[in-house]
Every structure is written in structure tokens, then in C-alpha cells.
């Protein structure tokens, strides 16, 4: 199955500020009582977007000016905590196609890449600059150029790197590894046979 080559993502962006935003915040555990990922999008950031009575809290995703944004901006160590793929699934099903942050937690980064969501790291000052630009003009077109490692908006450009292995996988349409892993099965069986605890 040929995968899409994800070389760039263009769209509007929304800034969700904060460091150490964990995957429980992105998708609270009670919404994981499901056997498919369908429908997770509406619960993205649920507990910081909704009050107990179901009314909206002040949150960038509730701001109508940013409705339809496809690029999510945030701070350092984004996606820390639980390994739940429900977090990137919720982000994707909500409509985001890329995440830009100061840094990413390891498991979250890998989970996103496997779903074809580029996670690009940018410097704090550059994220602030981009956040200011979209605050001033929420309709601003923002392009994350995965291949070139930069974000362009309103005549400006800032560096935004997707780590090399992920970048390579995305731009060459190899972000879902299953095809390649299956090709390796004969070698896997051979290694397993030579591995004492697996051979037994």
C-alpha cells in the first residue's frame, strides 16, 4: 500500500500554550473506554475545554477564530506521560495534520509519526513569534515544510525540524512501518530461532 508522501502541511494554526502537556490532558482516560478510535476527536483536551456542566471553558480550541486550524502549536515536552495512541488519534481526528512544539515526549512523537502526523520542534522564541502572528491574524496561512525543516507564514520563516528518521519516513511515504517490517519476516524468524528464550 503506497502511503502519502508528507512533505509539507499548509493551513491555519492554533496555539495551545504550556509546557509538559501530558496525554491525560490531551485525552482523559475515561474516553479510552472504546474498542475503536472513532469519535475521539470531539474529546480532545476535554477537561480543559469543558466545565462539568458541559459549557465551554476559555480555551484556544473553543475560540471560533481558530476553528478549522490544522497545525497545533505548543510548548516543551508536549505529549508526556501515558503511551496512549488515543492522544495523537484524537489530535488527528479533530482535524490537525501537524504539531509544532518546543520539544516532544518520546512515545508521543513516535505514535504521531506512525500516523503520518509530523511533529516539528522549533525554538521557543520562534514559536512565540508564530503565536503572535496567528493571534493578530487567525486566518494566516502557515506552512510547515517538513522537507526543508522550516515554517513559513506571512513572509517570515522560522526553523522547525522533524527529527531525521521521522522526516525521512514522512517525506518518502514510509511513516507506517508495517510494510517494511513484514518484508523482514524471514530474517525475524531466523533470528528468533537463534535466540535461546524464543527457540524453546
Amino acid at each position, binding site marked *: 500500500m503506497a502511503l502519502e508522501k508528507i512533505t509539507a502541511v499548509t493551513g491555519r494554526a492554533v496555539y495551545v500554550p*504550556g*509546557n*509538559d502537556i*501530558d496525554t*491525560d*490532558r490531551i485525552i*482523559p*482516560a*475515561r474516553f*479510552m*473506554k472504546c*474498542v*475503536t*478510535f472513532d469519535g475521539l476527536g470531539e474529546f480532545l483536551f476535554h*477537561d*480543559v475545554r469543558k466545565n*462539568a456542566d458541559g459549557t465551554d471553558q476559555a480555551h484556544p480550541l473553543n475560540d471560533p477564530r481558530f476553528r478549522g486550524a490544522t497545525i497545533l502549536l505548543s510548548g*516543551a*515536552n508536549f505529549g*508526556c*506521560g*501515558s*503511551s*496512549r*495512541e*488515543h492522544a*495523537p*488519534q484524537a489530535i488527528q481526528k479533530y482535524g490537525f495534520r501537524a504539531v509544532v512544539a518546543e*520539544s516532544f*515526549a*518520546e*512515545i508521543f512523537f*513516535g*505514535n504521531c509519526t*506512525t*500516523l503520518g502526523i509530523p511533529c516539528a520542534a522549533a525554538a521557543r522564541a520562534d514559536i512565540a513569534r508564530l503565536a503572535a502572528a496567528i493571534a493578530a491574524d487567525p486566518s494566516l496561512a502557515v506552512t510547515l515544510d517538513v522537507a526543508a525543516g522550516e515554517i513559513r507564514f506571512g513572509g517570515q520563516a522560522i526553523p522547525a525540524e522533524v527529527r*531525521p*528518521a*521521522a522526516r*525521512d*519516513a514522512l517525506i*518518502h511515504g*514510509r511513516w*507506517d*512501518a*508495517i510494510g*517494511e*517490517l*513484514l518484508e*523482514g*519476516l524471514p*530474517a*525475524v524468524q531466523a*533470528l*528468533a530461532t537463534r*535466540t*535461546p*528464550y*524464543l527457540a*524453546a
Partner: protein
Amino acid sequence: MAKSLFEKVWAAHAVRTLANGQTQLLIGTHLIHEVTSPQAFGMLRDLGLKVAMPHRTFATVDHIVPTDQLVEPYRDPLAQAMMEELRRNCAESGITFFDRATGKQGIVHIVGPEQGITQPGTTIACGDSHTSTHGAFGAVAFGIGTTQIRDVLATQTMALGKLKVRRINVRGRLRPGVYAKDVILHIIRVLGVNGGTGYAYEYGGEVFDRFSMEERMTVCNMSIEGGARAGYVNPDQTTFDYLRGRPYSPQGAAWDAAVERWRGFASDPGCPYDDIVTIEAADIAPTVTWGINPGQGIAITESIPDPTHATAADERASIEEALAYMKLRPGAAIKGTRIDVAFIGSCTNGRLSDFREVARHVRGRRVAPGVKAIAVPGSQIVALQCEKEGIDQVLRDAGFEWRAAGCSMCLAMNPDKLIGDQLCASSSNRNFKGRQGSPTGRTLLMSPLMVAAAAVTGTVADAREVFAVNS
């Protein structure tokens, strides 16, 4: 050349290099549970694939099981559906399922070691970030997402970039009343919640040499809270003594050969590390978190941080955000803070030694009025042993509820949840906003004995004083 355990295990399981430079890594042992696996089985069906090595895949049910209801159907139909889905997937694929009826069910990170499935020199993956627990045995163990679960089911491998290794030495001797939980909370406080990004943590030094397997598991369990995807301790006689005679441990002549092989995986003396950190055991105190991530911890004798004393704008903002959520006063002592709930359990601290230590000290004491205290064994085997030793009765007599095995209030995917902004003294691993099931619920992480001290006094307390711990 001298090599670390991580290097040796990686080399022994590397199948080949993939086009993007990552390694196709053989995963010897795959552990699955009800929350993160059903979608992976769905993906397999969509692709027309089968489970490659069902005999190397083991399942249990932990996150959603009610701890106060054993008979199915569960009151929550979604929980029941997940239970049945796992049962069906295991039956169809020929996967061993430690279901409740087997008497071996429990939290996946407690079941693996208990059965002897977790072994030195192996690779382990599980769709749960606390899979690092298994590193206590000198295994290299990764928490993975659901698409990677699909990969491991279909190929017994996954695509992964190699990690760097940071050796963390904890030198000297722990002071009385200081536990493995305090060691890891201290390490995370020192190195930060993202200090381990890109690393596997190798824990060692005199403290780890003396630690039991259960103490090593407590530390390795929370590696991910420090950002490290894996954490491990080199296998030694303590490891082998723990594993001898367990259901999945090698027997007879195969045992001796296995021990020899396992010894060979330990890091060679003088091997290179990407980083080395040394921590003095004497600097570690009973530790309590005050904030909304596991790195926001202080010694029980310290005061809650004051954002006006923060050195950076970032730090100030994060303290302010945490205190606003936690409704705690800057500069106040953490000791004396009133609690509503006390929870002892989880894959971090739900093992036999945790309950033994608590029972030894709470015998004859009473949970303070107004405090809801629950004790949840991490597995049916832990529960049974506690019941044989009378630990359950000691805890019940003290006013704790004694529950059935499961993840319980650690993440509240089951009926055990905080209500409103209740403050919970918890032996679990995460104090994130809303983690324990209420969007405004508040969590203070600490060792099981510190939870017990909070339970009997009704406030955050120094267990060393409450229980006169001095040896």
C-alpha cells in the same frame, strides 16, 4: 570492547536496518491488555494479517476491571465490552490470557515478573508507558502505541531508533523511612520530567545492589515520568533468586544455562555511557509531590515552592499553574495539608512488600475520620498472599477498604475515582490534572508508607514520625 546491557540486548535483537535508519528490533515478549490492544487487532483484521508469535504474547486485564465487582457483566457496559473483546482476540489468536478466572490476573507489569515471563537480556513491549518496570530484571522494555502493538502482533518486531544510555548511580545507604519510591521521585526532581528524553536509564550503585526486585521495579516503573522510555538494573543474584521456580522460568539444566547467559548481559565494568549521574542516598528524603507533574516534588520537611522565588519566567509560570490547580499555598509546609482520599496500589507500589511494610506499621492504628482509604493489590497472587499473611485484615481493621486486583484509582478507567477536587495521597505514578478521574481531582504522589501516614492522621505527614520509623 566493554558494552552496556542496553547495547548487548539491542545487538542480540536487531534484525536489520530500515530505510529511514531505524532498527527493526525483535521483541521477545509482548504483553497486552484490554485498553490499547483492541484497535490493534482491528488493524490486523483490516490488513488480513495474523499474530506472528502467539506463544510470545501474553494478556491480562487491569485498567478497566472494577475492584469491587468480580461477577460479570460489569456495571459499566463499556468495560464489559472491552473485557469481551480481549477475550475474543486472545481466543482467536491462541494467546495466553491471564483472565480473572485463572487466579493470575493483575496489573500487566506485576503479572509478567510474577509469572517469570519477564527475564534478563530480553526485549519486552507493551502498550503502556510503565512497561519500563520490567527493566528491573535487566530486560529492555518499551511502552508503545497501538499501531506499534499491531506491528509487534504481526511481525514480533517494531521500528525503533537506538537510545542513548545514562547511568544513574545512587551511592551510600538510604536513611530509615526512605523507600524506592522516594529514590525515583528524587531522581525525577533532580533530572526533570523530560531529562530522560532520548535515553534509557541504567540504575546502579550500592542502593540498587541492596534493593529487592520489588524495589527495583518501583524505580524502573517511573522511568517514563522522567522522560526515559526505558530504565533497567543489571541482573544479579537477587534477580536470579527471584526468578527461580516461577511458572515461566527455565527449569533444571536449562535454568543453569539461562543464568549463565543472563549474567553475560550485565553491563561490562568500565563500559562507556552517554552520560553518568551520581546521587547520594543520604540526600534523599521521604518525598511528596505538590504539583501537576511527577517532577514537582519536595521532601516532606520542605515548604511548597513560591513562584516569586522562581529564577526563570517559565519556572514561575509552571509553579503558578500547578498551585492554582492544586489549591495549595506557596511557602506553606506541605506537612499538615488535609487529605480526603488515601490510595495504596498501582503498578508502582501494589506489590507484596508494599503491603507488608504498610501493615507492619498501621497495625492497631485507625484511618482518620472523613478519609476514604483504599488498598488495592496489584494482582490476584499479591492479594492471595496478603490474605494468607493476614495483611488484608490488618488493613481492614485500620479502616482501609481491601479491594480486588487492578489499576484502580491510578488512572480511574474503572469505578475508583476522585470526586470533585478531592485531595488524594497516592502511591501511584502520575499527578497530572484530572489523572484520578475527576477533572479537578488532586493527587499527591508518595511512598505507600507515607500514604498510610496520611491516612491515619488525615493530613500529609512524615511517616517517620507517625510510625516512629528508625530502623
